[in-house]
């Protein structure tokens, strides 16, 4: 493993090593696949695999940000034990899971219904599709800004138009009960089109013969959707869900801008909790332990999702 050695001598080491390889390889063609792979493998090794491994090591220490590396104290698994005794980590986990479950269900249901409604006539769809992907392209920070402005209690448009239709103005982001739903709505706004586009593409690739046959046999539109289209779409739905599940656990920026985890801990997802533990409380070892805990949670949920939804089918659709 080349990158491990190079990793110790820093980035300059990568480069010299690589140049050396280049010279060697121009003589020996048999080495060329390794030369072609080397830069990608070294960078991924140095800037994502090595940090993940390092984070496991870091989680075994009690070490504060800004102090010398030598002052760290080896405490074994104590950081992990603290996770299970610290209520704030579990509150965060609860917020994260609630957020993930809510956006997944809402976006899936909405996305499928909208795709089924639109599927019948697809003329001019490419123009609409361009519009639908716009929210996803915008930086999460900007999405946070837009919604923070819309939810403002004094001059926000949401309260103003709710009042027009007779709903009491709400505190939204300042309310412990409504802050999380408000953020969930912003996520639904940004990501429902993603599910919609995937499901629509899936619907258009369904074999029309099966659907025609069912119609000839006198099945109602609802029966066709429920008994034929949805089961055939299952692999596509699974992958869409998996991608959204992973993204839901990455969400941080929008919340950082809209509420910064507040009020109280009501919107503090684990990603944000990790950031605060590391860079505000300055407990780097603890932050690493929570990071690894989060990774395990994501891995378990992904594996469960893949097992529940027949992995063989998923594999075929990914090809």
């Amino acid at each position: 493993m080349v990158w491990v050695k190079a990793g110790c001598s820093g980035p300059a080491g990568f480069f010299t090593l690589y140049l050396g390889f280049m010279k060697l390889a121009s003589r020996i063609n048999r080495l060329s696949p390794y030369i072609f792979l080397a830069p990608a493998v070294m960078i991924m090794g140095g800037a994502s695999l090595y940090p993940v491994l390092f984070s496991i090591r870091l989680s075994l220490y009690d070490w504060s940000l800004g102090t010398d590396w030598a002052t760290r104290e080896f405490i074994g698994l104590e950081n992990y034990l603290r996770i299970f005794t610290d209520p704030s980590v579990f509150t965060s986990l609860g917020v994260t899971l609630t957020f993930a479950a809510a956006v997944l269900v809402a976006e899936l249901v909405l996305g499928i219904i909208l795709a089924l409604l639109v599927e019948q006539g697809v003329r001019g769809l490419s123009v609409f599709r361009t519009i639908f992907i716009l929210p996803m392209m915008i930086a999460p920070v900007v999405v946070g800004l837009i919604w923070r402005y819309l939810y403002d209690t004094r001059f926000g448009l949401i309260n103003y138009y709710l009042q027009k239709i007779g709903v009491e103005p709400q505190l939204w982001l300042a309310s412990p009960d409504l802050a999380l739903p408000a953020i969930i709505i912003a996520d639904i706004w940004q990501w429902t089109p993603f599910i919609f586009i995937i499901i629509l593409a899936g619907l258009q690739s369904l074999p029309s013969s099966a659907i025609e046959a069912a119609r000839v046999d006198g099945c109602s539109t609802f029966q066709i959707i429920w008994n034929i289209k949805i089961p055939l779409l299952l692999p596509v739905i699974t992958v869409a869900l998996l991608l959204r599940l992973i993204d839901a656990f990455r969400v941080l920026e929008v919340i950082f801008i809209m509420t910064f985890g507040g009020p109280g801990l009501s919107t503090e997802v684990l990603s944000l909790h990790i950031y605060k533990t590391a860079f505000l409380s300055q407990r780097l070892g603890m932050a690493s332990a929570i990071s690894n805990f989060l990774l395990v949670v994501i891995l378990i949920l992904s594996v469960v999702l893949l097992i529940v939804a027949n992995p063989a089918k998923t594999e075929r659709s990914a090809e």
Partner: protein
Amino acid sequence: MGDGTMKGGKLGDNKWMVIHYLVLLLMCFFLLAPIFVMFQTSFKVETQIFSVPPVWIFFPTIQNYTDVLVMDRFSRYLTNSLIVGVVSTIFTLTFGGMAAYALVRFKFMGRGVISITTLLLRMLPPAVLAVPVFVIWSDWNLIDKRTGLILVYVAMNLPFTIWILYGFIAQIPKELEEAAVIDGCNPYQVFFRVVLPLIRPGLAAAAIFTFRIAWNEFILSLVLTNRFTRTLPVATSLFLTDHGIQWGKIMAMGTLIALPPLIFTFIAARQIITGLTAGAVKG
């Protein structure tokens, strides 16, 4: 696509067409309204921004934009964002293309391994990466430098780029490369002169994705840069204070950040959709 009349059945074709367009138009409205509000607010003066009921018709001012662009730091952050975005895109595409080529032509790993690596790395939340990378970069003297940020972005984007380009390279007929070899090209010349020009559509899709992620990314940039090297999203977030937010300027900054990705969308919607849905549907 385009065979809508074939599907809907005989009865109720018109009804379905009405529902179809109604749904599409409603979706457009809900998706575009918030973006439009940002855009519109960036052209308002303070009194119009804070007025209740909201002002919809007004004489636009470009004061917010001139204020933002005149701030000397803003141009620095804009430069940082451009450098980080462009450089990480170039490196990701070059190294990603090379790796994908090796994986297609020299068969030691299949597409399965790449897609699993892509998925695993995609699972890695940036916040999780931020802590160890911060410590390691401090040690390697990469902290607070654009180089350090670029390195992380390249690493983050490589798996996806390799995955996308793998598909494109696999479609190139081997005979083309063999002909180039017979003409006296070495493997590097074959790659840069024959393969790369042939996978231009794939490179375009990967480039848009990489640039967008580097341009939009926030948390790693927040942690790994200082007041000289930070990028636009971080600079904008620091402009938010608890009291007395200058919404006009903030929305102008937001619009400026959102503009390049939105422009790309209109130029290359097809490639973007291919990238977004890669893995879910055969694209």
